[in-house]
């Protein structure tokens, strides 16, 4: 096991804790957008897809190279657009009624 791997493991474990900490503050009302937002975030695998596919000698061959980038970008773009669309629907409007419960 290299020192490099240990650094990466450290980053991974700390990120897990940050994730748990940040996510536990999200109210149930927003769990679907949360899931959709995290879904878009793991689209970051597109970075990996580009790194293995958009190179001089892609190991995957022609069609799989296109496919891997296609899948990852579907994840990224679809994920973000759908999240944005959902979040746009959440409105606090309480029809001209004072003292309405505001949480």
């Amino acid at each position, binding site marked *: 096991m290299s020192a490099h791997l240990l650094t990466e493991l450290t980053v991974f474990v700390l990120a897990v804790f940050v994730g748990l900490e*940040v996510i536990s503050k999200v109210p149930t009302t927003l*769990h679907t957008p949360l899931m959709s937002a995290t879904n878009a975030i793991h689209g970051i695998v597109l970075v990996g897809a580009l790194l293995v596919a958009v190179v001089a000698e892609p190991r995957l061959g022609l069609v799989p190279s296109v496919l891997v980038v296609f899948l990852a970008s579907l994840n*990224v773009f679809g994920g973000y657009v*759908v999240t944005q669309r959902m979040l746009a629907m*959440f409105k606090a409007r309480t029809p001209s009624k004072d003292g309405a419960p505001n949480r």
Partner: protein
Amino acid sequence: MTESVSALDLIIDAAYLVTSICFIIGLRLLSNPKSARLGNTISMIGMAVALVATGFKLDFAAAWWVLVFGLGLGAAVGIYSARAVKMTAMPQMVALFNGAGGGAAAMVATAEFLRQGSAATPASWDNALAVVLSSVIGSISFTGSIVAFLKLQELMTGRPITYPAQQVVNALLGIAIVAASIMTVAGYMPLQAYFVALAGAAILGVLFVLPIGGADMPVIISLLNSFTGLAAAMTGFVLGNNVLIISGALVGASGTLLTMMMGKAMNRSIANVLFGAFGKVTTSSGGVAAGVTGGPIREATADDVATMLAYAKHVVVVPGYGMAVAQAQHSVRELADQLEKRGVDVKYAIHPVAGRMPGHMNVLLAEANVPYPALYDMEDINPEFPRTDVALVIGANDVTNPAARNVPSSPIYGMPILDVDKAQNVVVLKRSMKPGFAGIDNPLYELPNTLMLFGDAKASIDKLVSAVKTV
């Protein structure tokens, strides 16, 4: 890192750090509906930064067509379907995007595996392990998400699909995958072993989602989301890329947390959800027409209910997936508007597992312009039921079943429920007396303070709206 690092690499790594910070801040801002949109925008900016930075490492001249067809088509299809999808179909859309991410992770790992195989120096064991984990988890997520999509889209039955020795088959397959993975890492026939592991994982993905019923989908969707997150993190280990490790870990953690929350809301362990084939009892077990346990039920007309609602002070609407299926959410909001005009206080009680993914019902109601402060979680609304004049249950069944509280022999005993039976009056809108998803009788319907209003949810609510107007 002892190897020499070029200035460009440093700049790219710094950009990746910016991306990680954007993702974390983005998720943090999701903790409030007011800041959530900004959060998602920041997360998007982070993604853009990472993609631009990655651009400096790519060979566009050699593979521009991969960008045009892969990235271009992926973006076009993704954006189009994300815009066109109905909010009721959101779970399967998320499942599909999730599967795409998992598939991509598995393919990236495969590309690395092939590169290492042809490299002069063999890969270190830890790198090989990361490759195998990324492929196996990504591949399970890919096929599992596709089956979840097919089930939710009703292209195949939403009921659990079971067959003899199902768990034995899955266990054997699991062992085979682990064995093949170990062979790959140990370098014993690595090429064959690797593809056995990859294919085995793809099959396992299908097999483990098959016995999951529709109502358990919230758990599976979150679990698959966390799988793809982990696969992306493993891909980060493979490529030595911190932004993939951090993002994957964030998603993995969030998916795991949501999965556990969903399990808790159903009072079932994740193992029970995965292997229990809950709701296997098919087609209207138990009595049909008059009262599931033979007890008397009281049927009401729309006019009766409208009068009751119009003169109530506090009304709590309890929406279930049945409401969404009938597309009744807009009518429900209209009814609430009419009631609020008359000074009736209307709240919505949302059970954590209402809908087909965590928080799905909130999105459906938000789409119908229900203001989010009117949406109440189970813990917040339950103490209010004794003070509620009318609890209006629309297409919800098991989550209102008092048997979960007081019948130890009931399969759902111990599951936290909405205490609608404690309201002064309960009105249940239901298509028929057929039991709910779990196939369990609901004693709520036979309580003396319960009225049943039969019919399609949307048609019934529309009737209520016009009846309330004339009261």
